């Protein structure tokens, strides 16, 4: 059952991954095996808030996620510490025909990244946004946790938006608390 769930999940994510064939199947078997270990170890924590199978499948999904993150850590598409600012407009789907309009915006964003963020926030922003490094891969690279990296990025997003809003590039809705 766990193998079937893991295979379903790897197949679901497969088209977006550069992993295919036996390697993808091997990843599914490893994820199912590690999920079984996790389920066995945590079974005392099951509180009956959902069906047991749903609770158990969660660990399979987590293991598939972790193994995909590890795969990309071993085989990065770009160096994790590269810094190519020309990728930024593309990441946000900016229309090249409106370059004059968004050119100022992205220049302001780059200034805010350099001036407003802490070194750790900058490192995380550059890796995830400029280098398109999957968050789970960055977690492994930095020896951190998904929640810790997410919180760093969360704080960075808030700072950057505040800086851009203060300079009139984005609507100022600080009264809404966002």
């Amino acid at each position, binding site marked *: 059952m766990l193998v079937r769930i893991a295979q379903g999940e790897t197949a679901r994510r497969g088209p977006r991954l550069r992993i295919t064939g036996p390697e993808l199947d091997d990843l599914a078997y490893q994820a199912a095996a590690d999920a079984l270990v996790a389920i066995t170890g945590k079974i005392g924590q099951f509180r009956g808030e959902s069906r047991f199978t749903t609770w158990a499948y969660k660990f399979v999904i987590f293991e598939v996620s972790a193994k995909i993150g590890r795969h990309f850590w071993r085989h990065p598409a770009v160096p994790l510490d590269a810094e190519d600012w020309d990728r930024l407009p593309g990441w946000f789907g900016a229309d090249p025909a409106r370059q004059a309009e968004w050119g100022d915006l992205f220049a302001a964003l780059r200034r805010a990244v350099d001036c407003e963020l802490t070194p750790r926030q900058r490192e995380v922003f550059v890796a995830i946004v400029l280098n398109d490094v999957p968050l789970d891969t960055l977690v492994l690279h930095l020896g951190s946790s*998904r929640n810790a990296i997410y919180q760093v990025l969360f704080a960075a*997003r808030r700072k950057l938006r505040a800086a851009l809003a203060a300079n009139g590039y984005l609507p100022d809705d600080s009264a809404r608390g966002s």
Partner: protein
Amino acid sequence: MNGWSALDHFLRTDPRDVGCDQAMEMLHVYAELVASGEPADQRYPGITAHLHACGPCGEDFEGLLAAIRGGAY
């Protein structure tokens, strides 16, 4: 979404966002509510906010939902 609105959307943060740890702790409960058509977003607005903002957790949620809906009960 063009560059402007996509950037605005990405930089917006929701103060209700509970973060990865809390969202993943309750993911099985949340996913089951969604699968059964219950208003999970009203019961767990902080998890909904997080799943909209966090790509990896959103992906895990979609995966768990697919597993549930795949008739794997």
